[in-house]
């Protein structure tokens, strides 16, 4: 029942953007005539762009590889091997986006003794761009998290926790827009309900809001207001549940305008990203790479100029941007 007014709103917006486009095109052709060039030629020069995203989740303070005594995981993981891979990958690809879906903290004595300082320092060294907060990132309380923030040279995003009555207000942003490889990527975060999961004294006055409602609002803003080429959600909701608890699967199918959901919390090793169809019949990818830094997920995107039936001629305008560069 919620979808109907939403769709109507979209139609109005499309019509509005059509009018804008018509004006733009007209202006464009006038300007173009002055340059005495052919629009067809310009179209042909629009080149696809490429961007790679690397991601992790639920590191749980596994700084060293698992001990060799461990028959299943002995020798696997470890920050030094991960950093080496990331740095080589970046050398090969140039600008990339490096993300984490939360629960960086808790699980080895490194967290009990140093409170997450080393985890944040290592992620800064690896060049992480953005992370979201998992439930265990609150295990030393809001003050504990706040204390480690100076060690983090990356952004923290969450859009469905209201931090306004806490010391985290302004330190965790709802979203962040990145410019990489000539593309605009909007990244926002979603967190799990903390009540019953994290002791109240640790999460204090953080107020939880419905992730679906929040995601629809933020993703739409990122796509249309901020004109992002890709909208990424860093989610610590969990991949999916046997009951109807909100999860990445629910999020993917009940929202619009998210392109990629990078998940965590359930420690799910997805063999490859799972594709879902969202409420406007577009594809959404969901991925999660287990836990403990045992794997790094890698998604290599190829982009083309934004085209749909209402939008086609605008692709010619891209070349002017390139001329500007």
């Amino acid at each position, binding site marked *: 029942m919620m979808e109907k007014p939403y769709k109507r709103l979209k139609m109005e917006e499309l019509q509005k953007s059509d009018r804008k486009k018509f004006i*733009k095109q007209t*202006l*464009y052709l006038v*300007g173009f005539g002055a340059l005495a060039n052919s629009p067809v030629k310009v179209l042909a020069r629009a080149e696809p*762009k490429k961007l790679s995203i690397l991601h992790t989740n639920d590191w749980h303070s596994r*700084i*060293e*590889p698992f001990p060799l*005594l*461990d*028959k299943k995981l002995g*020798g*696997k*993981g*470890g920050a*030094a*091997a991960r*950093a*080496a*891979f990331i*740095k080589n990958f970046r050398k090969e690809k140039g600008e990339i986006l490096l993300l984490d879906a939360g629960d960086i903290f*808790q*699980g*080895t*004595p*490194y*967290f*009990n*003794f*140093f409170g997450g300082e*080393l985890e944040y320092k*290592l992620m800064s*060294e*690896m060049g992480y761009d953005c992370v979201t907060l998992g439930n265990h990132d609150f*295990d030393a309380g809001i003050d504990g998290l706040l204390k480690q923030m100076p060690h983090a040279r990356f952004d923290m995003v969450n859009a469905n926790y209201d931090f306004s009555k806490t010391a985290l207000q302004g330190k965790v942003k709802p979203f962040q827009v990145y410019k990489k490889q000539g593309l605009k990527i909007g990244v926002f975060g979603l967190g799990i309900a903390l009540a*019953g999961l994290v*002791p109240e004294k640790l999460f204090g006055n953080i107020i939880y809001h419905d992730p679906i409602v929040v995601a629809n609002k933020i993703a739409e803003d990122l796509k249309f207001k901020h004109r992002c*080429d*890709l909208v990424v959600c860093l989610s610590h909701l969990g991949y999916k549940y046997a009951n109807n608890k909100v999860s990445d699967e629910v999020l993917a199918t009940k929202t619009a305008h998210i392109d990629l959901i990078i998940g965590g919390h359930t420690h799910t090793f*997805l*063999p*490859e990203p799972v594709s879902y169809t969202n409420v406007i019949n577009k594809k959404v990818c969901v991925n999660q*790479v287990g836990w403990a830094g045992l*794997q*790094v*997920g*890698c998604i*290599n*995107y190829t*982009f*083309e*100029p*934004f085209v749909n039936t209402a939008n086609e001629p605008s*692709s010619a*305008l*891209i070349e*002017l*941007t390139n*001329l*500007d560069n």
Partner: protein
Amino acid sequence: MFLGLITLSCQTQYQVKNHNSQSIAIAATDTPQVLDQAVIKLITPFKEQLDGQMNARIMVASADLVKENPEGSLGNMVCDVMMRFAKLQGKVPDVCVFNAGGLRIPTVYKGDITIRTIFELLPFDNQLVMVKVNGAQLKDLLDLVAANGGWPVAGLQMKIAQKQAVNVIVNQNILDEKAQYWVLTSDYLADGGDNAAMLKTASERYTFNYLLRDALIMQLKSMFYDGETLQALKDGRITKE
């Protein structure tokens, strides 16, 4: 005029044409030559501070201890050792219940158990507590244990049928809804965590002033000193229909 047009055109968006993906396995032993030196340099001073205390052996496991449903040798060990710890503190709990989610490693492997092992098994700063509940509240708690497919317990026997606890035996007697019982557990569950809301209405609470892991470390140390090692014990305390 033309500059204005260029500004307009900057707003043009791209869309995903296609993508490919892979998950890269990270392992140090397979590729010892590709370890990032800057990261190793960052880790070293922290690691050196930890290794001295963390690598101390406090116990030996004679077999792999495994976290399992409805009962596992790892959960049984933790509960049995905690019951012994409580008794040495002069307290006599009737039963012990922890949530499975509190045990953070799936297997404690045969061989040396170090302080690090126990930190990784029980990383949370939860206190060991004892709460006094009536039989009806205990039944509610054990129904929660059953609904979760079985949690680590000690001091009782029960069967899981239709996600409920049936045939519950405590101290050789059938569970009496009107009797009072002391439950050894964590402050996390006692505060109602993991849906254990029934424990919030407990009539009394005793706090040992030991974190779970500190209690376990102390007790394992003293057992090892007395020549004990850990066996993988499964005695059918929780069975499933």
